[in-house]
């Protein structure tokens, strides 16, 4: 993780750590904080607690997003301090809706100059963000809105499993990881398990991202805590609730960073520090899919 972040994430980069609730790679965010990257533009549909940590830690100068909150809990206080009070410094924002953000990734992945979408009519969002503009249908049947492509310098994608070449499989919520990865210049895959290529090849329909576009594969189990990995560990709702208190006060916020990020060398230490008991609480039971037959055609 340390090498991958050092090599792939550069000061001033546009970075997307995607994953909708599911598979949010907190460990990558922590490593970016630990390496004191600067001036990043952070993109995500939902700047979750991880972006609150990163923005509060000072690695970012701009946020591109569609829903700003601690899901199921409330606010992201470190981000709000910067937006509402420039405390300790201003934070530029560029704001869309969920579908607008998704379509930006699709346009980026598809090398399209814009993507049409039936949103934003009569909303104030296009006034707040001049990059949301109307576009006329060339068939004379009215207008829709257009959003511009998003091409992150780096996309960080977490997955249940990948092979050494970076061929990556995900199940459960898919969010827009595939689109973000194809839209990005550089792709970092973090996985719960490194598997042999043959595991991937036994179920090619489950592959979300091919190694072809992947620049680094990092094996980092439990890297999504307090988010989750379907079938591997549960969402740690307690952490999300507690974060509300931690982030409300800059003092407790920075104490948390010192204890859980700067005070640790790696995510392995974070996992250990969290403790076996907490991990036991987050262990899911089993619910297996059935195998399907692809057939041997020789």
């Amino acid at each position, binding site marked *: 993780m340390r090498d991958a972040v050092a090599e792939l994430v550069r000061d001033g980069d546009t970075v997307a750590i995607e994953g909708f609730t599911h598979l949010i790679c907190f460990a990558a965010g922590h490593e970016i904080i630990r390496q004191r990257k600067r001036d990043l533009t952070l993109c995500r549909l939902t700047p979750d607690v991880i972006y609150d940590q990163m923005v509060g830690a000072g690695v970012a100068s701009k946020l591109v997003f569609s829903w700003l909150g601690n899901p199921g809990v409330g606010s992201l206080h470190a981000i709000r301090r910067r937006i509402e009070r420039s405390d300790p410094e201003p934070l530029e924002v560029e704001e869309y809706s969920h579908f607008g953000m998704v379509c930006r990734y699709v346009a980026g992945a598809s090398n399209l100059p814009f993507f049409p979408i039936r949103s934003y009519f009569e909303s*104030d969002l296009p006034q707040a963000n001049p990059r949301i503009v109307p576009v006329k249908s060339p068939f004379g049947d009215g207008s829709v809105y257009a959003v511009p492509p998003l091409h992150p310098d780096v996309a960080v994608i977490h997955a249940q499993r990948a092979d050494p070449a970076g061929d990556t499989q995900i199940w459960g919520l898919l969010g827009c990881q595939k689109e973000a990865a194809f839209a990005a210049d550089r792709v970092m895959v973090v996985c719960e398990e490194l598997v042999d290529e043959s595991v991937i090849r036994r179920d090619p329909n489950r592959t979300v991202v091919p190694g072809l576009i992947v620049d680094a594969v990092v094996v980092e189990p439990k890297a999504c805590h307090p988010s989750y990995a379907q079938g591997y560990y549960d969402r740690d709702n307690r952490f999300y609730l507690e974060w509300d208190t931690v982030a409300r006060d800059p003092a407790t916020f920075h104490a948390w960073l010192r204890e859980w990020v700067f005070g640790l060398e790696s995510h392995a230490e974070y996992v250990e520090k969290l403790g076996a008991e907490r991990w036991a609480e987050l262990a899911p039971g089993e619910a297996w899919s059935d195998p399907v037959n692809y057939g041997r055609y020789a």
Partner: protein
Amino acid sequence: MVGPGQLRSIRLTRTAYSSSEMMIVVSARQLAGERVCFVGVGPPNIACNLAKMTVSPDLELVYESGVFGSVPARLPLSIGDPTLVTGSVQVTSMFELFAYYLQGGLIDVGFLGASQIDRYGNINTTVIGDYAAPMVRLPGSGGACEIAINAKKVFVIMPQSKRSFVDRIDFITSPGHLGGARPAEWGAGPSVVVTGLGVYRFGAATGEMELASLHPGVTLEEVRDSTGWELRVSEDLEETAPPSELELRLIREELDPRGAYTR
């Protein structure tokens, strides 16, 4: 008494209920006859599941996180809770969910919350104050803007007070009935607003909110004191039927046994 616009609850007797429970029960009843509902987490989720158990057994739930046909084994605490996935009918990318389900016109009812709403059902969830220098930075649209435009109907659940029911909202995140009319190719827009005080509908010709029913114990005066404009009141103003024993039992024992959203 539960104060206007507040979600705090109070239990007087066995059949007393919280303001949230009232809102959930009323919302669930509105789902009678509806087929496909785009649902967020929290009170709308409980309302939808209550509707499935009571007035609308065939209701299909679509979660914005990309799940269709969930059978959650516990109360999901986020829109993307893993319990929504296991055992569901389909998990799809967010692109396909928003493009094919929502924009494609399959959603009958979308639920929205609101920090501010005006008489035409235009909704603000973006900022209080000026956009460039907000007093309060709210979450923003999420999927709300596209739900407001593309769902066939929109149900709003929100607390009511003079700060939320305002003459002029600070920012239009999600368009309602605009100045009174919506383009034909959109969905029909907000059809019901449920608050802690009453139920509101929209005049077919005017697109303006009308008080349709008062919750038990709430007075018209209280409602007017909690509304930032001259409120229209339906000629057929009713009293909302209180939650039934069954509705309360289902909420308290099955849907939210820990009272995460309902106490």
